[in-house]
C-alpha cells in the first residue's frame, strides 16, 4: 500500500492549490465547470409533456430549469426504447414499473410537497397537480423506508425483480468492459442484464466519439458519469437535477478512490481491462451504500457542497482548539472532533485546508456506515482522501467518546449524539501515538469543561426558525457561508421530523438550488410559489440562503424573515462556523 509522506514546509507532494488559510477549499469551482459543460439532457418540460395532466400546471414550474433540448437527447431516448424492445425478457418497461400499488393512484405520483400540509389537507390536495417534482411525495414513511430495504434473496425471480424495480433510486457502477462493480439494490446476478443494456447504450455513443451524459425514460432520469474505466450511473425517479445526480456520482467515485487510490485503480484496469473490481472493493460496499442512501434521504451537505458545524460559543471552541494544539502528536496531519457529522473543531497544518468532499467521505465512514462504530473499540483505517491526494493512503485513528453518562447502553446513543475523535496521520505505524494524543486530548477537555460544553451543545440541537425570529413565517432554512464552505440550518423538527417529510423538504431545496444555479442564469433572488409551499432562495457573494414557508405566504414577510435570519447568522457567525480552526 502506498503511503503519503508528509514533508511539512515543502508541500510539493501535494496537488497544487492556492496557499489559502481558509479551513475548507471551496469546490464550487469544479461545480461550475460541471454546469458549464454541454449537455444532452432532455429538458424537464419535455418530461412534463409526457405526463398528460401535468402541462396544465407547467407554468408554475421552475422554468429556468429547462435545458437545451437537442436531437441527441431524442436519439438517446430512441436508443433506450429499441434496446428495451430487443430484450424480450425485459418486456416490463421501466415506465410500467411505477409502483401504483404502494403510492396510490397516478395523480398522487405527481404531487409535490402538498403532503407537507397537515394530513387533513393532504386529502384535499390529492387532486391538485403541482409541478411534477418528486414522484415519491405521497408515500408514507414505510414507503420511503422500504427504499432502503434489501431486495432480498428470494428464489422467485419475478418478485425480486418487482421489488427491485419499485425502488425510486438506483445507482449502478460498471466497468468500461461491462462488468458490474456495485449496485445499491440487488446483486450482480439480478442487474447483469441491465448492466448489459446500459453498457450498450454508453458504448453506442462512445463509438461516435460522444459522451452520453444523461437521458430520460418516462419520469425516470438516467445520468451517466464516466471516470477512467468506470461508468457510474444514477437512475432516479425522485426528480433530481442532472447536476445534483452527477455530484452524487462524483461522491461515489471519490469513495472508490478513497478505498483503492487512483494509481492502483488505473493499474488494475491497465493490466487487465476486464478486471472484476468488486473483489478489491470487497468490504467497502457498505460505505457506498450508506453514501447512496444519504443522497436518497436528502443531504444538505451534498446539495450545498459544504459542512455543518456544531454551534458552540467562541470561547469554548477556542478552548477545544487550544487543547488540540497542546496535545498535537508530531506525526498528526489532521485532527477532527466531530459530533454526529457536525464538526466541532479541527487542527490542521497551515498549508493544507480540508476538502468538504473528503470530510463527507470520512463522516460517512465514521457516522453513517456501521463498520467502524460497531467494532466497539478504537479503529485504525487506511484511507485515501482524494481531495487531499488521490495517490496514497493516510491512516485514520477513530475513537468514539462516551460523553453520555446518563445513557447506559451505547446502542441507544443516536447518530446525532455520538462524538468521535478522528486523528489522521501519514504514518501507518502511528496508531499508539494517535492513541496517546486522544488520551491527552480527552483529559484536557475534561479538565477545561469542553466535554460538558459539547454535550450541552448537542442537547440543545439546532434552533427552530421561531427561536431565531419569533413568529416567523419560515418553516426551515439553509444558510451557506460561501467563504467558509460551511452551512447552518434550522431544526428539522417539528415539521420535518419524519424521513418522508425531510426528503420532501430536500426536494424543494433541490429544485430551488437547481433553479438558482442553472446554467446561464444570474439569479440573485428566486421566489417560487406552489399550492403547497413557498420557497425562497437568495444568493449573494457572501452567502446562499434557502427557505421554505407555508403556501401563499406574503412575499414581504418572507423577505423580512429571510433578512432577519441572515443578520442572525452574521451575528452568530463565530458560533455557527469554524473560522480558521486550530492551525499549526
Amino acid at each position, binding site marked *: *500500500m502506498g503511503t503519503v509522506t508528509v514533508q511539512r514546509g515543502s508541500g510539493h507532494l501535494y496537488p497544487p492549490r492556492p496557499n489559502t488559510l481558509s479551513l475548507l477549499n471551496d469546490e464550487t469551482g469544479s461545480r461550475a465547470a460541471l454546469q458549464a459543460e454541454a449537455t444532452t439532457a432532455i429538458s424537464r418540460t419535455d418530461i412534463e409533456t409526457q405526463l398528460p395532466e401535468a402541462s396544465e400546471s407547467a407554468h408554475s414550474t421552475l422554468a429556468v430549469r429547462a435545458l437545451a433540448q437537442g436531437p441527441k437527447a431524442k436519439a438517446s431516448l430512441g436508443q433506450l426504447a429499441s434496446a428495451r424492445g430487443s430484450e424480450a425478457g425485459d418486456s416490463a418497461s421501466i415506465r410500467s414499473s411505477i409502483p401504483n400499488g404502494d403510492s396510490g393512484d397516478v395523480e398522487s405520483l405527481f404531487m409535490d410537497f402538498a403532503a407537507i400540509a397537515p394530513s387533513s389537507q393532504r386529502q384535499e390536495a390529492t387532486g391538485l397537480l403541482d409541478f411534477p417534482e418528486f414522484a415519491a411525495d405521497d408515500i408514507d414513511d414505510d414507503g420511503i423506508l422500504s427504499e432502503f430495504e434489501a431486495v432480498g434473496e428470494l428464489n422467485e425471480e419475478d418478485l425480486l425483480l418487482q421489488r427491485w424495480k419499485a425502488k425510486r433510486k438506483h445507482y449502478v457502477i460498471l466497468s468500461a468492459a461491462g462488468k458490474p462493480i456495485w449496485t445499491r439494490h440487488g446483486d450482480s446476478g439480478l442487474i447483469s442484464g441491465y448492466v448489459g443494456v446500459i453498457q450498450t447504450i454508453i458504448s453506442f455513443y462512445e463509438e461516435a466519439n460522444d459522451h452520453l451524459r444523461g437521458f430520460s425514460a418516462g419520469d425516470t432520469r438516467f445520468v451517466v458519469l464516466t471516470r477512467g474505466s468506470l461508468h457510474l450511473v444514477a437512475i432516479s425517479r425522485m426528480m433530481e437535477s442532472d447536476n445534483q445526480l452527477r455530484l452524487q456520482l462524483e461522491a461515489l467515485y471519490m469513495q472508490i478512490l478513497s*478505498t*483503492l487510490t487512483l494509481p492502483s485503480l488505473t493499474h488494475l484496469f491497465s493490466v487487465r481491462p476486464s478486471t472484476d473490481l468488486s*473483489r*478489491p472493493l*470487497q*468490504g*467497502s460496499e*457498505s*460505505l457506498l451504500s450508506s453514501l447512496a442512501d444519504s443522497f436518497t434521504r436528502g443531504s444538505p451537505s451534498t446539495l450545498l457542497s459544504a459542512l455543518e458545524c456544531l454551534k458552540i460559543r467562541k470561547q469554548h471552541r477556542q478552548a477545544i482548539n487550544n487543547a488540540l494544539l497542546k496535545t498535537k502528536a508530531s506525526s498528526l496531519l489532521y485532527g477532527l472532533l466531530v459530533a454526529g457529522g457536525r464538526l466541532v473543531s479541527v487542527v490542521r497544518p497551515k498549508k493544507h485546508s480540508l476538502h468538504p468532499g473528503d470530510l463527507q467521505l470520512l463522516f460517512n*465512514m465514521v457516522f453513517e*456506515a*456501521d*463498520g*467502524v462504530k*460497531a*467494532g*466497539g*473499540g*478504537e*479503529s*485504525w*483505517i*487506511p*484511507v485515501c482522501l482524494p481531495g487531499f491526494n488521490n495517490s496514497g493512503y493516510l491512516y*485514520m485513528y477513530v475513537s468514539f467518546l462516551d460523553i453520555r453518562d446518563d445513557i447506559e447502553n451505547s446502542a441507544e446513543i443516536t447518530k446525532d449524539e455520538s462524538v468521535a475523535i478522528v486523528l489522521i496521520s501519514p*504514518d*501507518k*505505524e*502511528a*496508531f*499508539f*501515538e494517535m*492513541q*496517546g494524543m486522544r488520551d491527552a486530548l480527552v483529559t484536557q477537555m475534561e479538565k477545561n469543561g469542553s466535554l460538558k460544553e459539547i454535550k450541552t451543545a448537542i442537547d440543545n440541537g439546532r434552533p427552530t426558525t421561531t427561536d431565531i425570529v419569533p413568529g416567523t413565517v419560515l418553516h426551515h432554512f439553509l444558510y451557506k457561508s460561501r467563504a467558509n464552505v460551511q452551512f447552518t440550518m434550522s431544526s428539522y423538527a417539528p415539521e420535518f421530523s419524519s424521513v418522508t417529510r425531510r426528503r420532501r423538504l430536500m426536494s424543494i431545496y433541490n429544485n430551488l438550488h437547481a433553479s438558482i444555479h442553472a446554467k446561464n442564469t444570474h439569479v440573485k433572488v428566486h421566489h417560487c410559489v406552489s399550492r403547497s409551499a413557498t420557497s425562497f432562495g437568495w444568493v449573494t457573494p457572501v452567502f446562499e440562503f434557502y427557505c421554505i414557508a407555508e403556501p401563499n405566504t406574503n412575499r414581504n414577510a418572507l423577505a423580512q424573515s429571510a433578512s432577519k435570519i441572515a443578520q442572525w447568522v452574521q451575528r452568530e457567525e463565530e458560533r455557527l462556523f469554524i473560522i480558521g480552526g486550530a492551525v499549526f
Partner: protein
Amino acid sequence: MSESASANAPKPSSSVKLVLLGEAAVGKSSLVLRFVNDDFQENKEPTIGAAFLTQKCSLPTRTIKFEIWDTAGQERFASLAPMYYRNAQAALVVYDVTKPSSLTKAKHWVAELQRQASPGIVIALVGNKLDLTNDGGDVSEAAVAAQSESESAQEGEEGANEEDDAQDAVSGDARRVSTREATGYAEEEGLLFFETSAKTGTNVVDVFTAIANAIPESSLKTGRGTGAGTGQTSLGRSAEDSRVNLDDRNAATAKEGCAC
C-alpha cells in the same frame, strides 16, 4: 507507592498482544465483541482497517490484559497484516465451519505466522459459526467434541463424533469442515483448536483463556518487563510507551514488583 499498589493488586498482571486473522466474514469481530462486551450483532458490517480493543482475562495465578487487534479480512488489507502480527504473542486464526475455503485461507495465515511472526507466538485455530451446525445447539457437547479430539480421543467420544459426522451427511447441517479435519491439521501444526459460536457464546471465552494459559510465563516476563515495549514495537508502540511510562512509571513498577 509500589507497596500500596501490590496490596491492591493481589494477582500479577501482564499485557498480551493478540491478533485476529482470517478470511472476510468468518466472524473475527463477532468473536472479539462476544469476548469483550458479551454482545452479538446479527449482520455486522465488515470491519474497515483494524479495530483495537482490550479485555482482561483472569487466571487463577495472574491477570492477562489482552490487547486485541481485530483485522479486516478483505484481501486489500492483507498487506497491512504484518504490522499487526509483528511481535504479537498470540494469534487467533479464524475460519468458518460452513465454508471450506476459509480453512484454506486460515492455513495460509498459519503458515505466514510461522514464517514471519515472533517464534514463540501462540496460535489458536478457531472454527466459528458452530451454531449453524447440528452440534451448535449443545454447548457442552461441542466443547467436549473439540477437546476430546484435540487431546486424547477416548473411544466412546470418538464414536460420538463419528455419529456426528454421519449425521451431517443426512441432515441439512451447514457444516462443511469436519472437526476431525481441522483437529488433524491443528495437531500437526501444534495449534490450539476450538470450535466456537460467537452468536451463542459457545467456547468463546474458553479460547481466550486457553491462549492466556498457553503463553509461557517467561515470555510474559520479558514482554512486560520491556514494556509493553518490545512486545509491541510495531505500530510505534515502543516510542510511545517510553513516553507514557514517564508519567506512569510508578504504576508500571508496581505491577512488576508484584509479578515476582
